[in-house]
């Protein structure tokens, strides 16, 4: 006669359903948050990776500068290079204005982190410059 009360079974089913619905609701909420977080991470990582490549890639910057300075018009100019742990310094005490214009157009149009710059015009044709690129 000790039969299981069908209302108890019903109640158990309702409790299990409520437990599942509660868990499902939590998991859906977590999924929504995870999707937002993934999208944000994807955007952040793409942007960060791009910016790091531009401003932090030591080898890229060195090889790019080397290509510029090896150009015939600049090769003959008296441009000094000093490699440091945090960057590279290029300078000249006396450089032709046209050569300097050419160099500056390459550097300012390129992706470099210029931390220090000083250009002093000495005459109509000559100038000195000091430029530090950091990474």
């Amino acid at each position: 006669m000790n039969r299981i009360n069908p209302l108890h079974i019903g109640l158990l089913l309702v409790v299990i359903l409520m437990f599942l619905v509660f868990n499902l609701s939590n998991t859906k909420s977590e999924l929504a948050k995870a999707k937002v977080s993934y999208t944000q991470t994807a955007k952040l990582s793409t942007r960060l990776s791009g910016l790091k490549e531009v401003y932090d890639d030591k080898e890229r910057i060195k090889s790019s500068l080397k290509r510029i300075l090896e150009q015939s018009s600049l090769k003959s100019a008296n441009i000094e290079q000093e490699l440091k742990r945090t960057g590279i310094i290029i300078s000249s005490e006396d450089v032709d204005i046209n050569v300097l214009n050419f160099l500056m157009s390459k550097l300012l149009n390129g992706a470099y982190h210029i931390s220090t710059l000083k250009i002093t015009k000495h005459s109509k044709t000559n100038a000195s410059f000091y430029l530090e690129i950091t990474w």
Partner: protein
Amino acid sequence: MFTKFKKQYKSIFLDQSSPPFYLKDKVNIILSPSLYWVKKVSLPVKYVRDVKKLLPSLFEDTLPEGNYSYGAYKSGDEFFIFAYLDKLILDTMAKKKIAPSSIANVYFAQSELSHLQGAAKINASQSIYIKDEILLLVPTAWVQESADLDISELIPTKHSVTLAQFGHIVDSKILKKIAVIMVVILLLTATEYVITAQKLAQITELKDALFAKYDLKSTMIQNKSILKKYDSIHSKQMKLRTSISYILALKLNPAEQLSQLSYKNNILKAEFSGVVKGKESRISELLKTKEVDFKSSFKDNSWQVEISI
């Protein structure tokens, strides 16, 4: 030595006129004929399960209005079929102080007392006896000799009765349908939960893969901080280049010239020689049209412009 003994319960005879029972141990309940309807029928079917489908129609015209349950068992080539009101039996048990926990099994008197010899008194005015294999409840005055009913040695048959404790509230078929719907909803919810959990695991894996691919720091706070640093560098470098282009594009008078351009600690300085005091406003206006925020001053013979990058 290891023989199992089936526990034998004491039996009590339950009738609506029975006195209250104060039970300490579990008992078998033998239902008085006043608590059920019985028929002996001969049917062209072989098994009890086939009879059970026919039971409501077999009692259709004989029973008063009510929510009946049915039972049957086979005896020889014939069947004993029963109709009973669960609520009536349960209410009677409750009136007689019989708790459901005290009940081992419930039986019809028909099945348990089928070998009753003569008549037996169940109370001062009523007796039971068998006529044409049917156990009848009759006034004691109708029978000649009637001894008190003794069921102390009774060994129950297999024909126990199942009482639907809630059958009178909700139809068991409706309960079953509700249960099926509930189980289906449960399964669907569980399936959706599993799918959602899998999607969550996939997203987490993809995110981990992003961290590995781009060599990101372990926390997003660190990564956001690094991005902020690079964003700041980028915006300053863009502003530096734009500001230099504005300065180089200035149209100066023949006597005026840009003698020095420097950038350090986020300050861009431009030094113009040959600029007559009071005439610098022309250059200032040109810079203002480009929306450049700057400070300017005369120092020695030159005019200095300072732009905060």
